[in-house]
């Protein structure tokens, strides 16, 4: 989206991209987007970002700007508030389309935000996405709370393996911030 002032060249368009995306659960109605801009007008992130525009994301997919959209880091600043889904007059699940693009972006570019690698690492170690400090566990007792539930981190690791997540973690470089 930050690059949309660039000229679009015919050779960078992938005419099948929109069909590829539309087959994925959550993005089925992408082709129905008629660029009204309701998603963007009502998006709390677009209000504070110069670059993040869900309407443009939908148009870029329809045009077939596959490489551009999948390497655009602004995909990662959707807060998943789902307002765009509730307000879309064409019933496009905009936030789900963005999730589909994020998933595809990790595979396509071998890049993901550092925070997800950290959360995934914690999850495999402890079953929680944060490492719960010992002091917290002691304070639970003092506050009269039951012990933390038992976790099965080995099963998390197995879910990661089965669903291809482990490979994504191994293959991906990271970036920290998106302006």
């Amino acid at each position, binding site marked *: 989206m930050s690059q949309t002032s660039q000229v679009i060249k015919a050779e960078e368009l992938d005419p099948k991209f929109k069909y590829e995306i539309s087959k994925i659960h959550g993005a089925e109605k992408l082709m129905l987007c008629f660029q009204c801009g309701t998603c963007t007008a009502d998006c709390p992130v677009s209000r504070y970002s110069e670059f993040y525009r869900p309407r443009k994301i939908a148009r870029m997919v329809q045009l077939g700007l596959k490489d551009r959209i999948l390497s655009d880091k602004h995909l990662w*600043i959707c807060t998943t508030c789902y307002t765009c889904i509730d307000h879309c007059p064409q019933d496009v699940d905009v936030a789900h389309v963005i999730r589909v693009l994020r998933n595809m972006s990790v595979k396509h570019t071998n890049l993901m935000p550092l925070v997800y690698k950290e959360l995934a690492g914690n999850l495999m170690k402890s079953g929680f*996405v944060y490492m719960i400090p010992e002091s917290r566990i002691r304070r639970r007792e003092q506050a009269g709370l*039951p012990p933390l539930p038992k976790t099965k981190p080995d099963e998390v690791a197995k879910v*990661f393996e089965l669903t291809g997540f482990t490979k994504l973690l191994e293959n991906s470089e990271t970036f920290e911030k998106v302006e």
Partner: protein
Amino acid sequence: MAEEKPRYLIFLGCVIPYRLSSYEVSTRKVLQALGVELVEMPEYNCCGFPMDPVNHDTMLTLAARNLCVAEREGLNILTLCNGCFGTLYKVNKTLKEEEEEREKINGYLKEFGMEFKGTIEVKHLVHVLTEDIGFEKIKGAVKKPLTNLRVAQHTGCHIVRPKKLIGKDDPEDPKLLKELIRLTGAKCLDYMDEAECCGNPIIGVNETIPFSMAKEKFDHIMDVGAQALITVCPFCHMMYDLNQPRIERAFNTKIGIPVLHYPQLLGLAMGFTPEELAINELRVKPTQLLEQI
């Protein structure tokens, strides 16, 4: 005939054990007094939501695994976190209704000797309070009405949106939490853009945008003279309470709005002491508010 006591598996999620036991302490106090029995999850893993942006199937399988544990226990799930609720509720619904998705995820679950059957329900604290306990009973439990207080609510997103998947409350103008607040005797004020997101999910990649969103929320609630913000999600709470000093620094301004978990507010009205409700653990201390009640 004795009324059957509602019984739930309590799903704590990750944020509560990590940072916000105040929410757990106050919830357990209040629910016990209202006759809800909480059973601990015998086996737990993160709901799966944080992994969704990277791989949707990973999220679905992690969530389904938790649902299978609850099915095995034969108990419905109660969550305190909007994120856990949205994830478990939607995955439960999707796997119940969509055969293709269910078969795919059951293919993974087979490796653990598990199978999603679709026999349980998932509820958030707000739904247990409004649907199971009911307004009358809560009203009856209020011993010290907080009639001097003027507060604002933040319902959050994943407990109401997307409307077509959740189908509870009104996402544009959420009412359940407001009604619950009014039962305590406190005034729940209307303010601009009440349904706006806290912004916290993207704080790992960008701070400026969520801080701006939270600042706008505080501006709106201060405009109407609210003394506190009331939340029902630990993730939203972190944004408004733990991060409040950082938001103040970023905008070089004083906010000073205490942010209470709803069961803390209800607990005060039911006659529990601030200590019993872990109110001292809040980052922004509600000193003035406590003097007033």
